[in-house]
Structures are given as C-alpha cells and as structure tokens.
C-alpha cells in the first residue's frame, strides 16, 4: 500500500476544502447583508401560520415589512390586539388596535330551502361545478356547497352544513383566505362585535328569487325602513348592512319576512 497516495489525496482534498472555506469566509464578509434585528423579534410575535391574511407572502415577509415601516404594527388580522401590542413595543410606537373581523357567508340557501336543478357528482370543487351552469342550485348567487373555502381555511373554521358553508366563530381568525377562495364572492369579513348579517346575495327581483330559494332576499325594504340607525340599504334587490352605522339592535332580523337577516352562530328561527 502506497502511503504517499493517501497523503496526496488527503492533502489535496483538504486544501480544496480549505480554499473553499476561505472563499466562503471572505464572501460572507463581502456579501454581508445587514438584516434588521427587529425582523426575527417581530416574527416571533406573529402567529406563524403563514396564512397570508395580511397580504404578504408569510409571517416573515410581514415582519420584514413592519420593520421597514411599510406595514402597520397591527397588520396581522389573526394575531389581533395582543400581537399588535407586542410588535408596537418592539417598534416603539403606540399600538392601534384594529377591530377583529370574522368571516361570514352571505347565503343560507340550505338543501331544504334552495331549489336544485340537477345532481352534481363531479370533482369536489366549487370552481368546477360553476362551469356547469353555475351550480346545482337554481339560484346562481347561492353557495354551491363544495367546500373550496373549507379547504382554503388554514384554521379549520369552515365546514359544510346542509350544502352551505358555515363559519365557526370560535375558530375563525378573520385572515380572509376564504374570501378569495369562494368563486362567487359570498364570504365577507364583518366586525366581531356585530352579530347580524344578511344571509343572501341574490340580486334578482323578489318574485324570481322566491322561485329558486325559500331563504332568499326579496328586496322588500322592510329592514331598510325599520332600521333605527339607517344602516341598511337595499340596492339591486338585496339588503346590505353598513357596520359603521349598525348598532346591533336586531330589529332587522325581527322584521325580515323571509328570515334571512340572521344572528351569527345561531340557528335560524324555527318556522312557525
């Protein structure tokens, strides 16, 4: 056995490694990028779910934006006030607490109420069924109930109940992922402190709506006339609540003849 060969191999590879090591060491100096030390600190205060609810690619991207002052300290809709306060402490500014929001599905045309035109047995995806005449339900504004939002929710807060998506308020963090997942745009964020919502998005005229769904807004304007705060407006034959003005009195829900203005997290009133 030639010892010399081993020595040559060891030395040359060792030198090769050494050269690379030296180059890397110099490179790390030459190419050093100063990173804001606040970024990892801020990232620690964020939930770390990388849900993208803030509009940035992930929690670290948001942390970088906050450190640079591009995003407000309360930009994370999921972490809410507690995380905003801690981040504000790091950034040395006063926290502005944002009202926490929760997702809300503006359709309550469940299997019993909504008229179906055909039976769909294709792939379980809302986008797919839309290609087939806008879904099984005769109402083209209705939730198709195939759960694209359920799969998009990073917190498991959405579920399907009788063919309509339902939000679990305890689990929902208001990140807004479902808003973009719903191909019909039926989901919106409304402030946690408000409990009444309009459970319909149908813009057809009352008579048309009645034909396709028992739980459809017929645009009767009873809610608009009865709202003491003037928070409800009926445009395009369906009601909309302005949560800036709404006092959460619940009068609209009482007056609604089709019972589609509902309280969140509660079952609809039993039909008499």
């Amino acid at each position: 056995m030639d010892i010399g060969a081993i020595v040559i191999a060891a030395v040359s590879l060792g030198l090769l490694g050494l050269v690379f090591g030296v180059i890397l060491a110099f490179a790390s100096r030459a190419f050093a990028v100063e990173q804001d030390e606040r970024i990892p600190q801020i990232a620690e205060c964020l939930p770390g779910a990388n849900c993208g609810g803030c509009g940035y690619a992930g929690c670290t991207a948001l942390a970088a934006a906050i450190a640079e002052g591009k995003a407000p300290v309360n930009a994370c809709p999921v972490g809410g006030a507690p995380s905003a306060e801690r981040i504000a402490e790091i950034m040395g500014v006063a926290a502005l607490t944002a009202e926490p929001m929760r997702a809300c599905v503006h359709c309550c045309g469940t299997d019993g109420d909504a008229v179906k035109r055909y039976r769909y047995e294709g792939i379980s995806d809302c986008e797919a069924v839309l290609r087939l005449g806008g879904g099984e339900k005769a109402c083209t504004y209705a939730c198709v109930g195939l759960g694209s939002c359920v799969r998009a929710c990073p917190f498991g807060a959405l579920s399907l109940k009788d063919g309509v998506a339902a939000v679990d308020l305890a689990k929902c963090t208001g990140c807004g992922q479902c808003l973009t997942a719903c191909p019909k745009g039926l989901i919106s964020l409304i402030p946690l402190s408000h409990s009444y919502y309009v459970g319909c998005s149908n813009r057809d005229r009352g008579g048309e709506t009645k034909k396709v769904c028992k739980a459809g807004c017929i645009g009767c304007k009873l809610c608009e006339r009865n709202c003491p705060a003037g928070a409800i407006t009926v445009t395009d034959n369906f009601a909309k609540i302005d949560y800036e003005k709404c006092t959460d009195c619940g009068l609209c829900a009482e007056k609604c003849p089709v019972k589609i203005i509902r309280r969140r997290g509660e079952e609809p009133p039993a039909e008499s």
Partner: protein
Amino acid sequence: MPTILIIAINAILIENFVLVKFLGICPFLGVSKKTDTAIGMGCAVIFTMTLSSALTWAVNRFILEQFHLQYMQTVAFILVIAALVQFIEMALQKLMPALYQALGIYLPLITTNCAVLGSALLNIQNGYNFIESVVFGFSAGVGFLLAIVLFSGVRERIAACDIPKPFQGFPIALISAALLSLAFMGFQGLKLG
C-alpha cells in the same frame, strides 16, 4: 447534427434526469405541489447545475486528474457543489436581491439534490469537454424543470379530485409520477448517434 444539440436533446428528453434516470426525486416530489414553486425550483436547479458542471469539470481536470485522484470524484464534487451553492446564495442576496427573492428558499435545498451531483459525475463519465459539460448541465436542468412543471400540473389536478383514502397524498403522487415516467420512455425512440 452538431454534438452539442444532440447532448441537449439527449439530456432534456431521452435521458431526462428525473423521469428516466430517477435522479433528484426528492425535490421532484417535495416542491411540486404548485406550479409556481415548481418553476422556481426548476430555475434554481438549472442555475446551479450549469455552474456546478463548469466548476466540477475544472476541478476534475486541473486537480483530480493531475494527482490521479479520480476515485475521489464523489467526495470532491460534493464539496464543490456545497461550497458553490453557499457562495451563490450569499452573492445573490447581495448583488441580485430580486433573483434571490425568487430562488432564495430553493437554493439551500439544491445542496442535497443528487441530480446536481449526478450531472457532474456523468460529465466525467461521458468524457465531455468544457463546453459540452456546461451544455449538458444546463439541459439536464431544463429537463428537470420540464419534468417538475409537468408533474406539478398533474398534482394540481389531482388535488381537486376525489381520491380513495388509501391513495391520498404521496401514493397517488408516486403512481402519477410513474405514469409520467412511462410516457417519457417513449422518447427512447429519438436516440441519436
């Protein structure tokens, strides 16, 4: 036909690294859930493979061959590739932040990508000269990009399908990868020279 073109077609289609040679399966399965990330990974692989082909060829020619150390190829090339990836990552971060943002998270993953090492070793095995090595590295990367982008399209479709429970996730991914690989076997007929 010029040799370089033959090498390129060979590396992209006939001897596709992922689907025919079964190299680089880990990132192929790991980062193919979305087409966007697949493209990012593919581009990062092209980038590193081209550079590492050039560098490993030089190391082999001017160091290993000089000292008759060809049997140390694997070790030496791993060293070269790991150092190169590290260096590229640092350089990109400083000089081309935009490109770093696009490739950033995939670069460290490539250090352990056997396709990169494979291309370096195959260059030597096939006795390519410097230009041929670089072309081979680049087209092998293009082949990887092609395979991973095709596969990510398949997986995006699969994600929307109703798969029987035992097949959900990796089982169905592996089966569809096998079918894709079978399809690529058809290119064997193209073999030139």
